């Protein structure tokens, strides 16, 4: 059947030239947009390394004439930035571990075990996704204040733990995809349910656990409203919530160098995490975006 073999439409030289031209145009447009999106970062880095007198000059200079590290120690001297950094790390790491510790067993139970009320309970977990965070803020603030937890890590960590519905969903999807034979074989060997989870399921869904770890860490590192409310002591703040102190008094509001140095410190962990695991993070965000 000769007619089944379709000749490819021959590209005319002008067609090729036009295609190259439009490709170039796309590159130019996208490059311009990229410059606009990264510019705030560049300007932040740039200012963080400028001496005070260069910050306030009229000329637009990306790289300082006399680059300096001074802004970093200045920021640490003026505000308890070291405390904020430590708080950000501690809270993010503990909350991430806690979120995995509660969502992984639940995801496993909802994926592989049958028990009375399982569907209803799972629906109750998923339904929390549509509750806007702001709605629960006042009662939770009263509760944390009554418990005397104000200004402590625990005040941020514990109420943040249950915001894991999406992680439960993601982990459950991954556990559902494991072959039933794998679990049956372990069952026949007499493995208990808990062993099934720790020795069969967990080693087999490591990529999904990595994804949840990255998302949970970023989410907690960047968390704003809740720590803003319950961390009122100067030294109890996180980086994301402490930074606003720079703008609170007339002197530090003009300390743009140290302010941008602090902002640089706050953006570095997410950016480094991104550079280390670019593929993983992009895939993570794409999957998380498609949760609907």
């Amino acid at each position, binding site marked *: 059947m000769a007619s089944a073999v379709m000749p490819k439409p021959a590209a005319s030289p002008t067609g090729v030239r036009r295609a190259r031209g439009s490709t170039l145009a796309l590159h130019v447009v996208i490059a311009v947009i990229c410059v606009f999106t990264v510019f705030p970062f560049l300007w932040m880095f740039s200012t963080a390394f400028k001496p005070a007198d260069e910050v306030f000059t009229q000329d637009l200079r990306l790289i300082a004439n006399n680059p300096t590290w001074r802004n970093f120690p200045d920021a640490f001297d003026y505000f308890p930035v070291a405390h904020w950094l430590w708080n950000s790390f501690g809270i993010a790491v503990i909350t991430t571990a806690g979120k995995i510790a509660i969502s992984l067993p639940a995801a496993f139970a909802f994926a592989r075990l049958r028990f009375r009320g399982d569907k209803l309970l799972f629906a109750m977990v998923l339904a929390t996704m549509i509750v*806007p965070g702001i709605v629960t803020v006042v009662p939770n603030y009263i509760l944390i204040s009554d418990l005397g937890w104000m200004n402590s890590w625990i005040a941020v960590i514990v109420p943040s733990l249950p915001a894991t519905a999406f992680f439960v969903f993601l982990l459950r999807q991954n556990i559902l995809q494991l072959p039933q034979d794998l679990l049956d074989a372990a069952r026949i060997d007499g493995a208990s349910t808990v062993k099934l989870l720790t020795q069969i399921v967990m080693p087999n869904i490591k990529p999904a656990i990595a994804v949840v770890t990255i998302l949970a860490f970023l989410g907690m590192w960047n968390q704003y409203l809740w720590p803003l409310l319950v961390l009122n002591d100067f030294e109890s703040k996180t980086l994301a919530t402490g930074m606003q102190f720079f703008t609170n008094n007339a002197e530090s509001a003009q300390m*743009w160098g140290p302010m941008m140095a602090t902002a640089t410190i706050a*953006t570095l962990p997410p950016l480094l995490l991104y550079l280390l695991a670019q593929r993983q993070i992009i895939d993570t965000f794409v999957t998380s975006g498609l949760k609907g």
Partner: protein
Amino acid sequence: MAITSQHHSAARGDRQVAEKRAWTWYRLTEGLTPYLLVAPLLILIAIFIYWPLVYSMYLSFFDWNFVRPDKEFVGFGNFTRLPDDPRFIRALWGTLFYTVTLVPLQVFLPLGLALMLWPIRKSRLQDSYRAMLFSPTIIAYSVAAVMWLWIFNPNHGVLNKVLVEFGFDRVRWLSDRDTAIWAIVIVATWKTLGFHMLLYLAALEGVPKDYIEAAQLDGANNWQIMRSIRFPLITPTFFFVLVTTVISVNDDVFGAINVLTDGGPFDSTTNIIYYLYQQGFQFFQIGAASAVAVIVFVATCLLTWVQFKFVERHVHYG
């Protein structure tokens, strides 16, 4: 003989009882295990998400300021008094403004960008482009806002420096009630551009190659393929982005409002979420804040329901 046999059977009986007991114990613990596995999560959800919802509704019927020991019952007073507060009306306008400006910007701009990146996806620069466009997504909103605070600074900010360079007048970006809300719109657009673009790109990658090849065999050109095959097949993603943007856009800008303008100047940048925050934590009007919380929750539920219905009817999964 008889004695030994009796002894034997007694021993067997003991073992059976022991085995039965162990089995019952095993059954019991195994039967409880699922509940033990879900308990920590469900208890925390009950305490910190569901109970606050109920308690908000309760608080919305009282006049209270956090400190006073007694709450005064006012019925629906907190709800009926809201329209009398000009700041509440400003907040509703702000909510509408953010929705009307940011939804198209956050839904269509990234779509256009994705469609421009798609034809050059094989380019060596593709990963760098994506990394640069995506970087604003992974940093904190509040930190992003501080970066922009410096850019918008009226005296030394780079934006005004550029304007002056080109012969324009300085703009008081954040302290002028006509421009402040636009400044926040710019930051919010910048923050989500790369994220939504990635979702669209992932959807474009998911379009089966057979469809495209079949269309090419039939002589369809690139534009026809985009319009008749690619776009219809990415509509689920399009609607997903639309739905989540509509629902979360006013929540998302909280950090930007808080750092850049604190709702001002003259409440020109506030929205319903920010109004709730100020009522609760700046003016300590717990009743009013709770009433707004109830309204926001009901509105979110309604929006989610409407969008589900709409998407069900209009989106075809490929």
